[in-house]
Structure formats: structure tokens, C-alpha cells
């Protein structure tokens, strides 16, 4: 399934600039809590390969086996319904159902096992046209470009690369230029890539505040620093506070 053509997303430029692989997106859904994936999001993600993870979190006093005995059929049914929506949008979907005590451990494990490019943290969304890419640290420009270029190839959406200068050694402007270059190389038209750079001491809050202007946020994973230990991962904080869904680009493993 990973070997087929890049499908509708494949840009038509010279082979050297072709996307190296169809990006793979992990979509975790808390199925038994009635969480689902909106049609707009399904359409937006359809150019990528999707791994649909239906999970159910249990308190520690409940053996996972016990819950699975009782709820497995319901969880499978709910996941299959969502998978059907993706299939109708033209993509085969890999589905997994997991009963767990620890959501983050499960998402991390499945993301690593399936070697996904990005993990979706779902939030409601209308039609996807504007994508915000906040850049506040070293980011894997290749992976980011593969993901954004593929997802936007067939739509008319635009991407905003927003360098956030936190006053450290990180050169936000240069990183934005690099990312823009890579996106153009991947075949995105120049008028669909906007760039801007601004300063902020609290990048996560700044992103949340601007989130209503955009439909999807794509950001990099950040390493464990003191602040994320205290407040949680910035991407998760953004996902909780923002109006838009967040795609977290994972660092390449190995």
C-alpha cells in the first residue's frame, strides 16, 4: 500500500522534485467517546496515507482485556465507519483499535511503528483553505514540505509560513526562507506560499491566538524542555487552545 503512486497529490514537475513518498498521517480518534473525523478533514487528508487509530482510554483499575471483552465490537464498528468515509474519499486506510491506560504512550508507539510523517490532533474544521505553519525551532523541512505540498496539491488552499522569533539563537527568517524554498521545489505555486516573521515570548499562546484565521495548523514536534514538562507538549497545548486541527510533524526516526 505504501508502494503505490502518490495518487492525486503527485505534482507534475520533473521527477527529481517529486514527493519522495506519500506522507502518512496518524489520525487518533477516541471512538467510544463519540469522537469522529469531519468530512472536510477527511477530504483534506485524503491525498496522504492515513492510519486510523481508534483508541479507548481506561482508568488503571480496569484491565484492558476486560474492557475489550465488552466494548471491542463497538469500537471496531465505530472505527470502520470512519474508515469508510476515507475510502469514499479515495484512499485505502489502515485501521487499528487499541485499548490503553495511557493515550500518549499508545499514540507515540503506533506513530513509531507505522513510521508516520505527522499525527493529527483533531479539532473541528470547515473547508480547508488556509494552512498555518508556525516555525519556532529547527524543523524537518523535507518532511514538512512533503506533507503540506501533498495535502494542498489539488486544492486551492494557501500556506502561511510564520517564523516566530523567541529572541534566542534560532534564525526564524532563515528557517522560513528554507521552508519556502523546499515547498516551491515540491511544486507549490509561489503565490500560494506566504511568509512572515514576528517576535513572541510565548509562541504557543501566539499560535492559539491566531488560530481562528486559519483552517489547519501544521507544526513540528519539539524536544522535551522544562516548559513542556510543566505545561505539556506545545503542540498539544496548541491543539487544546486552538480552533483548528493541528498536524504534528514527527522527527524522522533512526
Amino acid at each position: 500500500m505504501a508502494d503505490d503512486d502518490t495518487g492525486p497529490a503527485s505534482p507534475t514537475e520533473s521527477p527529481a522534485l517529486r514527493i519522495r513518498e506519500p506522507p502518512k498521517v496518524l489520525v487518533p480518534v477516541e471512538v467510544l467517546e463519540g469522537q469522529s473525523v469531519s468530512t472536510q478533514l477527511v477530504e483534506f487528508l485524503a491525498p496522504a496515507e492515513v492510519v486510523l487509530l481508534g483508541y479507548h482510554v481506561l482508568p488503571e483499575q480496569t484491565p484492558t482485556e476486560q474492557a475489550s471483552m465488552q466494548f471491542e465490537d463497538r469500537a471496531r464498528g465505530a472505527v470502520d465507519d470512519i474508515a469508510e468515509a476515507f475510502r469514499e474519499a479515495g484512499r485505502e486506510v489502515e485501521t487499528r483499535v487499541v485499548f490503553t491506560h495511557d493515550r500518549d504512550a499508545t499514540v507515540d508507539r503506533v506513530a513509531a511503528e507505522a513510521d508516520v510523517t505527522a499525527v493529527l490532533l483533531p479539532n473541528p474544521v470547515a473547508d480547508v483553505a488556509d494552512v498555518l505553519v508556525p516555525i519556532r525551532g529547527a524543523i524537518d523541512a523535507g518532511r514538512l514540505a512533503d506533507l503540506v505540498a501533498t495535502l494542498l496539491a489539488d486544492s486551492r488552499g494557501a500556506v502561511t509560513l510564520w517564523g516566530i522569533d523567541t529572541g534566542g539563537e534560532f534564525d526564524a527568517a532563515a528557517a522560513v526562507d528554507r521552508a519556502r524554498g523546499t515547498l516551491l521545489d515540491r511544486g507549490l505555486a509561489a503565490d500560494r506560499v506566504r511568509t512572515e516573521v514576528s517576535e513572541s515570548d510565548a509562541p504557543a499562546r501566539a499560535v492559539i491566538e491566531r488560530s481562528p484565521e486559519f483552517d489547519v495548523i501544521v507544526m513540528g514536534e519539539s524536544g522535551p524542555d522544562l516548559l513542556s514538562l510543566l505545561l505539556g507538549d506545545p503542540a498539544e497545548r496548541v491543539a487544546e487552545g486552538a480552533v483548528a486541527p493541528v498536524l504534528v510533524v514527527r522527527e524522522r526516526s533512526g
Partner: protein
Amino acid sequence: MSTETREGTNRDGESPEQVALPATEGETTVTEEGSELERSIGLVGGIAIGVGTMIGAGIFVFPGLAAGRAGPAAAGSFAIGAVIALLVALPASELATAMPESGGGYYFVSRALGALPGAVVGLSIWLGLVFATAFYLVSFGSYAAALLTEAGVAFGGAPVVEVLALGFGGLLTALNLLGTENATTLQNYVVGLLLTILVLFLGYGGLDALGVFGAERTPERFMPFGPLSMVTTAALVFTSYLGFAQVATVAGDIENPGRNLPLAMIGSVAIVAVLYVATIFVATSAFGSDSLSAFGETAIVEVARAFGGGVGALAILLGGLLATVSSANASILSTSRAVFAVSKDALLPRTASRVNLRYGTPHVALSMAGGPVLALVALGEVEVLAEVASFLHLVMYGLICVALLAMRRDEPEWYDPEFRVPAHRLVAGLGATASFGLIAFMQRESQVVGGAIMLATAGWYKYYAADVQLKGVL
């Protein structure tokens, strides 16, 4: 996978159900339908479950009682208990790596020896843990009462220990019913804090007992009541070691069970054994066994006061509260898992393993733990509660050893443990003999209650699930 003997129905027409496939690898188990069950307890978490369940009684309840019965030889009683616990922990580890399933001891016995011994063990473990939990709660009540007394609250002769124990037992059950998000993390911290308090206390007390500071104390005869008293006391204090098998009841949640299960079980027995023997040594060196005995269930607080004054006493009181709560909570959780394992195999109505979708907790199984616990707490008989709990566990431990012998003799095709007990016949043989033998040294009252419970469970099996077959299947 041999499923041909997994059959038979109970009176309600239910037959044993298999959820997870026997094949396990690393971080997940896969069910028959292909869903994954995440394993999220690591080695430290496993050890914390073992130590957290075990560490309460031996240090915070028994020093006074045991010293009264055996004198300084009580340290020997704890050592005997540790040897027996290790002799059982080894076979249990091998079986757990071959069958890392919820239910632990019940699972091994029912698969190796058949449904009748399985039912007796499974139901006895449920009730044994109920007795153990009641015992931990009554101990908690003693500590809470002592702490209040320390704070200057006067009771005027009210039955405050039982009231506090009942209140807290109800609270723990309710918390578990509503779902405790970070129970495991909290348990790790509680155990860490507890170990710190104890190591400081034992470090200072040990140096003192060896005569490093202060005056040499009057030497006392090691066995003032003879060697037999050491063995009968071992039977009483064996309750202190009723925790390592609880690690096996959460086997389905432990990462990399082939490595972590044996390490957690054997490691937690080793850790608490050292602490217990050291505590008794320190306690009997600080006071004569007569005065220790007179202090009763909170004797160790007086020992701490002798070393560290008011601060020492408060630290140990705090430790006692943490330890008894952690043991009681771990036991309530294990009880509900034991009920689940038995109900999954159709030996109890399937309703007993229902999970409440709103809170995600096994509410029926938890109530089957919490309800009877409160009834027993009201009785308040510490020694009988402890011994009946020991009795029922010792029967299971003995049968676990027999189960290992049977498994090794038959070696079904699927039996492929990652850890094999060296000289298994000797270890399991000694473990079974010692476990069954220790029962003979208990008080008559506990033997009668324990025996009656076992007969009742066998009767239930004959009445309810006589057709259910479990031997030799996964």
C-alpha cells in the same frame, strides 16, 4: 493453540471466553479480533505494586505482635516468611512469563490442575484479598487514631479505629469506582517516600542497635519462647508477604513481561524481606520484647520516638498511613481482577466482569471487593483477619508450586516460559511443602474459617459450573 478442552457451560449457559491471543510481544497483546491491548506498566511500576502491597503489615503492624509471641526471634520468623515467599515467587515467575494474563495465581492453577482447584483458588483469592484488605484497613485505622492522638485529639473511649477504617474503606472503594487516573504514578511516589522514611529510620536505628551511639542495651535471650514460637509467628506474619503475587494479577498490563514479571516479583520480595528483618532487629534492640508487645499495633512508632523524638514518631506515623493505604488500595484492585478472571472463565456469572462505560471501571467486581471488606472491618479482629488472609493465600501458593510441577511434566505445546526456574522440582517441592506446612502452625480459629471458605468455594463450583473445563488451555 489448543482450544479443544475449553468448553462446558455454567448454570447461566455461559462458557469460558478467551479475549487475548496467547502470543505476546513487547508493548502490546493482540485480541482474537486483532485489536491491541496496550501494556503500560514498566519494571519500576511492577516493583512498586509488589512493594506497595507488601510493605505495610510487616513493619507497621506486626513488630509488637510478633515480638510478644517470639521475642527477638521474630526477626527469624520474618526470614522464614521471606524464604517461603521466594520459593513460591520463582515458580510463580516462570508460570507468569508463560501465561502473562490477568488473574495471576488463579490462572496458573486452573490451567495446570483443572477447573475445580482453579475455582477454589480463584474464589479463595477473592475472599483472601477481602480479608487482607480488611486487615490493612483496620491497621490504617490504628495509625490514623494514633496520629490524631499525637495531634492532641481525645476520643473518650469511642471505637475510633473501626470508624476510621470503615470511613476510609468506603472512600477507597468509591474512588476506585469513579476511576483514578494516576493511581500507578501515585503508587510509585508513595512507595518511594515510604522507602526513604524507612531507610533513614533503619539506618539510624541499626547503628544505634549495634551500640554506635548511646549506651549498650541489655541483651535479651534470642528465643525466650522456644523455636516453635518462631514458626507459629512466621505463620502469623506471612501476611506481610502477600504482595508479590499481585504483580502477576496485572501481568496483562506489564511491558515486556518475560523480563519484567520475574524481576518485579523476586525483586519486591527481596526488598521487603531485607526491610522487615532489619526493622524487627532494630525494634527488638531498642526495647525489650515485653514492652514492644505492650505497645501493640503501633509499636514501631514508639521505637521511632525513642530514636528521633516527636519528629521520628510523626514520620513513622505518616509512613504507616501511606503504607496501609497503599496495601489496601492495591488489594482492592487485585480483588477486582481476580473476580474478572474467574468470571471470564464462567465460574462466576458474566455480570461480575461488567465495565461501567461512563467511568470505565469494573463496578460489579469492585463492589464485590469493597462490600465484604467493610463487613469484615466492622469485626476488627486483626490477628484472625491476617491469618485467614494468609491461609487462603498459602493454599494458592502451594498450588502454584504444584501447578509448576504439573506444567513441566506435561509441557503443553504452547508452554514456552522466558524464565525457567533452576532445579524446579526441588524449589517447587520445597515451596509447596512450606506453604502447606505453615498452615499447620496457625491458630485453630483461622484454620477453621479458612477451611470453611475453601469448602464453600468447592461447593459453589459443583453447584454452578461443574461442566466447565479449563485444564491445559490458554
